[in-house]
């Protein structure tokens, strides 16, 4: 019981990090980013490469991974997405190809076998009779800190309010002189950085393989659809719902069934309430 509670919280927190970034870049720039999972995988692999091959201290490696992937996100937006933004389908295809490309490059560089990333903190804690590894608790704590930081940034900085303004009404924001192109790049960077942070945090207890980004992408997409596309509170609520439902089903039924929850939730939401739980406008 306690295990479900804690594991569910960890999974939900990671999902929330992925979903918030995914929904942010959609809400602001209308980019449905199919490369989002690739950012997550890149985060994990950067830490692996830096620690295992170059013996960089773990925390430094983590910081480099988050910043580096964030910059990569900016580059993807500027070089690949921006010229194609007229067509939503072209954007979908180009982010898809970035995702596939990253996966292929990881596969060719590191091979298909799973890689081990050392834990940032060792040991485990006993919470009400359940053993929980310290790394999971760290992941939980770190993601709460990151999400809270993002919230503060959005609410209390000029840049944050500009981002919010664009996501609410892009046209009005442009009239107010907010440079939307630059904001798009920045948001893509933030979104990629958070996804990479999620990858870094789970790397020690997840299988690090080149295709590790696919499932989180599907999950992020599901959460965002369930919560309401473009809504940050919606995606956090969605993450909690999905994280706990999955954990519950994984413990009570089977891992396989837990994997189907997210995709089934998408179909149900799209059919029953296309606007999502907290979304303002319908997804069509």
């Amino acid at each position, binding site marked *: 019981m306690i295990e479900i509670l804690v594991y569910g919280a960890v999974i939900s927190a990671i999902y929330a990090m992925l979903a918030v970034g995914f929904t942010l870049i959609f809400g602001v720039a209308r980019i449905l980013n199919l490369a989002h999972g690739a950012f997550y995988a890149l985060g994990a692999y950067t830490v692996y490469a830096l620690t295992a091959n170059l013996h960089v201290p773990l925390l430094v490696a983590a910081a480099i991974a988050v910043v580096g992937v964030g910059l990569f996100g900016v580059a993807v937006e500027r070089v690949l997405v921006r010229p194609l933004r007229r067509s939503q389908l072209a954007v979908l295809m180009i982010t898809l*190809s970035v995702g596939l490309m990253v996966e292929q490059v990881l596969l060719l560089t590191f091979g298909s076998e799973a890689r081990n990333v050392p834990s940032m903190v060792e040991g485990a804690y006993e919470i009400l009779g359940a053993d929980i590894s310290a790394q999971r608790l760290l992941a939980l704590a770190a993601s709460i800190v990151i999400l809270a930081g993002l919230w503060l940034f959005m609410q209390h900085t000029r840049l944050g309010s500009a981002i919010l303004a664009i996501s609410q009404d892009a046209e009005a924001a442009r009239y107010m002189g907010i440079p939307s192109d630059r904001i798009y790049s920045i948001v893509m960077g933030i979104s990629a950085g958070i996804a990479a942070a999620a990858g870094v945090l789970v790397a020690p207890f997840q299988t690090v393989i080149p295709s590790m980004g696919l499932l989180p992408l599907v999950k992020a997409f599901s959460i965002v659809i369930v919560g309401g596309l473009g809504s940050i509170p919606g995606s956090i609520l969605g993450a909690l719902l999905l994280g706990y439902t999955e954990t519950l089903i994984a413990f009570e039924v089977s891992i396989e069934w837990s994997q189907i929850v997210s995709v089934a939730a*998408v179909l149900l939401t799209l059919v029953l309430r296309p606007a999502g739980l907290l979304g303002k406008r319908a997804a*069509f």
Partner: protein
Amino acid sequence: MPKISKIDLAAASIVFAVLAAIPLFGVTTYTIGVLTVCVCFAIWAASWDFMSGLTGRENFGHSLFIGIGGYTAGFLNVEFGFDPWWSLPAAALTAGVSAILIGFPTLRLRGPYFALAMLSASTVMQYLVIIFSQVTGGQDGLNGIFPILDSQRDYYWLTLFFLLVTLMVLKALALSPWGTILRAIRGDEATCQAAGINVTFYKIAALVISAVFAGLGGALYAHYQLQVGPDLFAVILSINIIIMVYVGGMGSIYGAVGGALLLNILTESLRAFSEYRLWIYTLLLMLILFFLPNGLIAPAWTRIRDRLARPREKKRQAIA
């Protein structure tokens, strides 16, 4: 949309004649196998293009219909012992029915949402097949499917025949008022309604037609592989098909076939670099998105055709 000219027909006949003649020149069964798979992909790409290329609703879950077609063949053949020939109409039927069921909820959605809802649907099916392994054989799939024809060469000709049927039906529909309406749906759904067109009906009908041929292709593929597995539902199969259509040029149907042939031949000739295959596909897709937004094959053929047609027109003018 320009009508089919004599040059188009001549070119299509030459391509089909060449494809049909290849097995006569003492090629190995391996090559015939490669060609059979090639033709299956061409059927899938053409059927994808009919729905998604014409209406602009990109279907990221085309493998759903392929898988349903393949598993229909597998079940009828392996579990219920039907004659293999039954697989083809049955697969077309089950895929078509599944398109009606999935189309009603998903086709209300626009653009990327339809794409991702279809992706989700095919992924759900893939998981379900793995979960209900007692019935479906799980990861191992269904084995021991009977061949429809004993000779590999004859079977290749059969699949080629079905490709021809697929193309004739799809192209005829695309050139008919149906095609005009589907392209109008791509333009603006509200205007279509204002013109008195039942948009929902046409979108679902287009998806059903697309699914029927995808399912047929799935059954043909199953009876070539003599085995079906959950990978038939995989997203990556849908994505491969989409890349083929992009390479060929969307909305022309023959372009999709060209893209399928080209990429399959490319795959085969790059066999030594098979691990780079997807990498090359992806790179090709990126280049096409940036430099050839209309694809490679269809625009190239339009140019060649204009070249060929010009001298004749001059002659006609001279006579006049």
